[in-house]
Structure formats: structure tokens, C-alpha cells
């Protein structure tokens, strides 16, 4: 079956939906493919807020926001991108409000704002109220609002279509080829559907499921990065993966930084606010990489609660009113998933795998680039967590991901609308689906193979233990060997479900393949980066090394199945790298 649209968007999270809106407004024939119903996308899980220097509560400027983003990202941020982010944050948040997003309000009826980690006044003087929020369900409101607008504009959706491959024209994407569409697996009946298109955007979200303890949805398996990577597009800055400090012990469900933004404490076994040892100025509101490391240090020093591997997040002193008004959802999580009462009990937390700073490299117009000189891949776009612009550098600040979705999702949509005008519909051979059909049939048909679960859990374990908050050469080598072994074993993966109708068994096996690709690039890039920067923290190289490593890594697939690494310079405009002290 062949469909045809001028533009295709893969993924219906915040980034994909906003792009779809722009295309609809421009009158472009566009469609959104998503393996979940759009409102199930993980953007809906974002809690705390979206930063924009509106200055509704106190003085604020986009330049301050830009600076915080760069410093937060440990100077690996491309500063032109950070400028775009901080400037356009303001208009996109206002536009969201116009679309109907129910922000909390200040007494004079404006959008309410709160503090968030790493966001400061006057270039680092102290915390500033910059995060616009709707209780602690900001992401939910963004996702719903954007979806509502898509309904309003009649955007075409292919719900529960799992994109399994990209179609190319004129060679692989890494060698100058053009992206000509996608192959999608219709989950309802197992049909492989070919969609031709002049422009394809990847907005497939992150890959936290690579780790054992994560705040990410089961569906976040790095599909976009892996699919592009398989066609020769590099994966950028993969070694930078953020661990959020406050996940529910064991299961990783996130307790938003909003809690600390509203004044929650982090306590060690003695009831001491241990952040004083690590970031005396910002305390609990230091950037995430620092807080995660601080918690890990405390635990290693035996100051975890009862010597165990967690510390406390304490909201008791905030009072019931504030808790109910500003943090209703996360306190609900604590009640449901820990059986504790946050009014009266401190909450056991530990760092949880949260956010991929790296991903598909793009330029400021959300066009995918394929090398160190930023050569554009025709017809391919990316935005959201799956992309790397890079506005987050080595560590993302809280709330900046939602801003990233809005700003670069919008830019992607606008750019696609411009680009599709000038080009013709690509030619697509009738048999493009054959290789992928063969791959899927092989998995389905294999009788005596290895269960995908074993592979996935072993991957999650090794990544958590050896490529987590702290890393070193020994652990990373262990991880590399393990991932290589798992990739071998994956060639023999099999599933129980041999049917065609709603075969989630098969698709999950496919997703394990994406995770193995992304893990492979992460480990390779991490081994090669012999410094500590942002979320990448090497115990054997504890210092930042601007001389050798103020560069973005680009991982491409080598002919032998390994990873080739290249580096590209960081764009620096206004702010020269300085030591990062809070």
C-alpha cells in the first residue's frame, strides 16, 4: 500500500505536533505517524514547567536564560542555538497560551512562574522565577493543547503506525542521498505501509529504556536516532545522558524538580541538607548533573538513608495548601507508588535515567546535518528529544526540553513548509518494503531463538551500572564488550507471537534493536571522551578539558558494524567557557 504526502512527521509528542500545526497553517498536505495514540506521547509526562523569560514575577531577560542554558550545558552548547531557544521561548509560550494552555495564574492574571534548577538572575546571582507552569502537569497540558489544535485544524494522523524504516533516494543519507519517505508497520493488522514524501521529520523522543531505572516510557526506545543512524546519519553527543536526581526508588518514576523549585529539601541520613557541600549558592536548585552526582557521593559515603542507596526528598515544611495546589500529581505518585504520605513522610529518592542530550544532529532550522561541516541531509528534519541542535550541550537544564520542543518543533514545521514548495515528489520503488519485511519475517519465523527480554534486561543492567552517573574506562570497556555480545545475540532474537494482528511482541523485539544501536554509540563516544563535562562524569578524568574536548562527537556506523567517531566544533558567540560553579 502506498500513501503520499508532501510532508511526514514521525512522532506526535510536543515537537511533532507543533510542526504539524505549522504545516497545517501553511496549507501543506502533511501527516503525522505515531506508534502510540498522540495523547499517549511522553511529553504528557513532563511535570515541572517550561522556561521563558517573561518576567511576570520578577525581572528577567532572555540573555540571562541563554547564559544559564550555556553554563548549565557546561559550555558544550551551541550558543547561536541557545540564543534562538531563549528568545523564541517567550513567543512560543505566549502562543501556547493563545492556543488555550491553562497556565497557573499570578494574582494579576498573567502566566505564573516558579523557580527551577540552574535558572538564575543576572548571570548566576541567584535563582529566578522563569518556569511557566500548569500545576505539575505542564507537559500534559502542552500535549493536550497541541493535540486539540491539531483536531481543530484537521491534521491527518496515522495512529498506531510504527515507523520501521526510512526510504532514501539517490544513495544513503550519509552520502548525499535524500530522504523520500518512510515504511510504517500498521500495528492493527501488521500491514507494511509505504509513505512517500518530500520531507520527513523525526520527532520520536528519547531512549531512557536503555537503563534499568528510568523516568521514561516503555515506548522510548530511540527509534528515530537508530533509524537515521542505520542510513548513515551520525548520532551526535550520545555520551551525554542526563540522570534526574529525584526518581522514585527502584522504579524511577520522576518527582519533578518543581518540588525543589517550590522549596523542597534534599536530606541525608542525618537530616542534613547535603547540597550545602556541593552548591552552597543554589543548594537544591543546582543543575541536575551536579545534584545527581551529589546524591551518588552521599550514598557512596554511607550517608544514604540507613546506609542504603537512596536519600530523602522532603516537602513536609511546604504545608498542605502549597503541596495540593502546586504539586498535586507528584504527591499522588508518592502515595500510589510508594504508599507514603508526603504531608508527613520524607520521600526516598535516587537518580533516574531521564533525558538524552544527544541525538540526530540538526542546524538551527531543524534540518538534519550529516558531518562536521553541517552538510544538510535533503528531506530529513528532526526536533525534540531525538534531535541534537545542540541547545543542551553536556547537560540540559530543567524545563529547557519543553522549550526545545516548542521552539524547534515550530521551526521544523515552518522550514518544511518552505522546503516542500521547491521540490518534486520522490520516486519510490515498489519493493522498498522488502528488506524490512524480510527482517520482520525472520524474527517472527525464528523458532528456536533467544527471548528479547533477556537481551533488553542485560543491556539495561550494564548501561545502568557501567555507563550511569559515574563512568570510568574499566566500566565502559565492560559495557562495550557486553553491548557487542548482545548485538550478536540479537541476530538470533525470536518472539512468541507469530501473528499479524497487534503483534506487540514483534515490535518490542524491533525496539530492542534500536536500543542496542543507541547504546553502542553512547558507549563508544563515552570511552573516547576522556574528560568530565556536564552529565558525562569520568572518575578517571575528573576535570573538564576544553583544550581537547570542547567539541561535539559524531558517531557513525562503521563498515565492520562498529562505530566511527568524528568531532565538530562548538559554536561560541557571547560567553567564553568558564569553570562551572554554583
Amino acid at each position: 500500500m502506498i500513501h503520499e504526502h508532501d510532508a511526514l512527521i514521525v512522532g506526535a509528542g510536543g515537537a511533532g505536533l507543533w510542526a504539524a500545526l505549522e504545516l497545517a497553517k501553511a496549507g501543506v498536505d502533511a501527516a503525522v505517524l505515531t506508534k502510540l495514540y498522540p495523547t499517549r506521547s511522553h511529553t504528557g509526562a513532563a511535570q515541572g514547567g517550561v522556561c521563558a523569560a517573561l518576567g511576570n514575577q520578577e525581572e528577567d531577560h532572555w540573555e540571562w536564560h541563554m547564559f544559564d542554558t550555556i553554563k548549565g550545558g557546561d559550555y558544550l552548547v551551541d550558543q547561536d542555538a541557545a540564543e534562538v531557544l531563549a528568545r523564541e521561548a517567550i513567543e512560543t509560550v505566549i502562543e501556547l497560551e493563545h492556543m488555550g494552555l491553562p497556565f497557573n495564574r499570578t494574582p494579576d492574571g498573567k502566566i505564573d512562574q516558579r523557580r527551577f534548577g540552574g535558572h538564575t538572575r543576572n548571570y548566576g546571582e541567584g535563582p529566578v522565577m522563569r518556569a511557566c507552569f500548569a500545576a505539575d502537569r505542564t507537559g500534559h497540558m502542552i500535549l493536550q493543547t497541541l493535540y486539540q489544535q491539531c483536531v481543530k485544524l484537521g491534521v491527518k494522523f496515522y495512529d498506531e503506525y510504527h515507523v520501521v524504516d526510512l526510504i532514501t533516494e539517490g544513495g544513503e543519507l550519509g552520502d548525499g542521498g535524500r530522504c523520500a519517505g518512510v515504511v510504517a508497520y500498521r500495528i492493527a493488522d501488521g500491514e507494511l505501509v509505504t509513505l512517500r514524501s518530500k520531507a520527513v521529520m523525526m520527532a520520536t523522543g528519547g531512549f531512557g529504556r536503555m537503563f534499568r531505572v528510568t523516568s521514561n516510557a516503555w515506548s522510548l526506545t530511540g527509534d528515530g536516532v537508530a533509524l537515521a543512524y542505520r542510513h548513515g546519519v551520525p548520532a551526535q553527543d550520545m555520551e551525554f545522558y542526563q540522570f534526574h536526581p529525584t526518581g522514585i526508588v527502584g522504579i524511577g518514576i520522576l518527582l519533578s524538580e518543581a518540588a525543589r523549585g517550590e522549596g523542597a529539601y534534599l536530606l541525608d541520613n542525618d537530616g542534613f541538607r547535603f547540597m550545602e557541600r556541593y552548591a552552597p549558592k543554589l543548594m537544591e536548585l543546582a543543575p541536575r548533573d551536579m545534584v545527581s552526582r551529589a546524591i551518588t557521593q552521599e550514598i557512596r559515603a554511607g550517608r544514604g538513608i540507613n546506609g542504603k542507596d537512596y536519600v530523602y526528598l522532603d516537602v513536609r515544611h511546604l504545608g498542605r495548601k502549597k503541596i495540593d495546589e502546586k504539586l498535586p500529581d507528584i504527591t499522588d505518585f508518592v502515595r500510589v507508588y510508594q504508599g507514603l504520605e508526603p504531608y508527613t513522610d520524607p520521600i526516598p529518592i535516587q537518580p533516574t535515567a531521564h533525558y538524552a542530550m544527544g541525538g540526530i544532529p540538526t542546524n538551527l532550522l531543524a534540518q538534519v546535518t550529516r558531518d562536521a561541516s553541517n552538510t544538510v541531509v535533503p528531506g530529513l528534519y528532526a526536533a525534540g528529544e531525538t534531535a541534537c541542535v545542540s541547545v543542551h550541550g553536556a547537560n540540559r537544564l530543567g524545563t529547557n526540553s519543553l522549550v526545545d520542543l516548542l521552539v524547534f518543533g515550530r521551526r521544523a514545521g515552518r522550514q518544511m513548509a518552505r522546503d516542500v514548495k521547491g521540490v518534486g515528489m520522490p520516486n519510490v520503488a515498489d519493493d522498498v518494503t522488502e528488506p524490512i519485511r524480510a527482517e520482520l519475517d525472520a524474527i517472527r519465523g525464528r523458532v528456536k531463538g533467544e527471548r528479547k527480554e533477556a537481551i533488553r534486561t542485560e543491556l539495561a543492567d550494564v548501561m545502568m551500572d557501567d555507563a550511569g552517573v559515574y563512568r570510568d574506562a574499566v566500566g565502559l570497556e565492560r559495557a562495550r564488550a557486553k553491548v557487542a555480545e548482545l548485538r550478536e545475540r540479537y541476530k538470533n532474537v525470536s518472539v512468541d507471537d507469530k501473528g499479524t494482528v497487534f503483534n506487540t511482541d514483534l515490535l518490542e523485539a524491533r525496539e530492542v534493536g534500536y536500543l542496542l544501536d543507541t547504546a553502542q554509540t553512547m558507549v563508544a563516544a563515552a570511552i573516547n571522551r576522556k574528560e568530565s563535562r556536564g552529565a558525562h562524569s569520568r572518575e578517571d578524568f575528573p576535570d573538564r578539558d576544553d583544550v581537547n574536548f570542547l567539541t561535539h562527537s559524531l558517531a557513525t556506523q562503521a563498515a565492520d558494524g562498529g562505530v566511527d567517531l568524528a568531532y565538530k566544533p562548538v559554536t561560541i558567540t557571547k560567553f567564553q567557557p568558564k569553570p562551572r560553579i554554583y
Partner: protein
Amino acid sequence: MQIELRVLRYDPERDQQPHEATYTVEANPMDRVLDLLHKVKYEQDGTLTFRRSCAHGVCGSDAMLINGRNRLACKIRVDQLKGKRITVAPLPGLPVMKDLVVDMEGFFAKFRSVHPYLQPSGPVPERERLQSAKDRAKFDDTTKCILCAACTTSCPSFWAQPFYVGPAAIVNAHRFIFDSRDDAAEERLEILADRDGVWRCRTVFNCVEACPREIHITQAILEVSRAIVERHA
């Protein structure tokens, strides 16, 4: 502890009729039903099919009938269900595609039918539209909906008449009808004054019990009914 998990299964490619399958799973009391389903799928039988994504009650993928009530599998703990036997079945009243997966298209069509998007009139201001905290509070509850369908499929009026627009759609209409920035309340009230609109609600409250977001759904429905009455008065 050991749990006996009974799942109503149906594979259109193999079964004439839905049938119950029983699995024994090792569980601890803080496990959620989703964990048990995963254990079955990953350790015993990979063909068991269900939707899930976020695993913490915010995406609305895994609403199903658990021990006779609609709930999210990822939000109900084993200890809350009391007893060693748990039964799981697909959401009632929607066509079953496979095992616990139902066809949601009709449900979303109803959602779309109430024009669930802001329709302000007048020029677009430079900055945000102002709204007092009090006005914002009027529709706060109904903004929480995650479109999981637990409510609509728990409603006897919906089982009886699948044309009933259902609590979820009314909740989403309420969210805009009572938003001070919106000017299309009339249009939505007109739609909901239809024979298959709000009048089909018989205050059964199954929806409220089922809603994982604890939305006061019946209150929202009756507020809409009252708005329709007042509009005609």
C-alpha cells in the same frame, strides 16, 4: 506471594470466542497489575497483548477491566486489590482487537465531536490573555483528563447506547465551556443538548469511580446540563 491472574484473551486469528487464560505469577504487594502482565508476557507467554507506555498513570494507554472495575493497570497495586486472584479483561463496550486491546477510534471520534479546542473571538493580544486564578479554577478539574476511556466504558448508559457521547467527551467540552477565554460555549452546548448528549447521563457515578485522574466527572456533566438549561431559560 503468588497471584492467580486470569486474563480474558481473544486472538482474532485463532479464536472464535474470547476465553479466560490463567497464569500464576510471583508478585510482591507493591507491584502493579501492569507489572504482573509484563511478567506473564516476558516470562511465560509473549503473545499476551496489551497497550502500555508511561507506566505511571499519565498516558492513558492501559485502562482495562480489573476485578470488575475499570482502572489503569499501571496505577493499581496488588495489595489494593486484596486477595490472591486478579481478573483482567478489556474495557467493556468497545470492540476488542486482541486480548486487552480495544478499538479506540469511536471513543476519539466522540472526543473530537465536541470541538475540544479553544475558540476565542476578537483580536489576538500581544501578550497572554489575562485570566484570574478564580476563573482558571472553574475548569481546572477537567483539564486533567488523559483520554483513557475508563469512564465512558464504565457507563451503563454507554453500554446501552453506544451513541451516547459519554463522560470523557463531556469532560473535555466542559474544559472549554467554562474557560473564560473561550467564546464558543454556545456551539458546544448545542452539540451536547443532542439526544445522545448530556441527557443520557443517569448519574450512575461509575465514571467517577473509574477515573484515574479523580476528576469529578458527574459534577462536570451536570454543570454542562445546567448551562444548557440556563441557556434556554
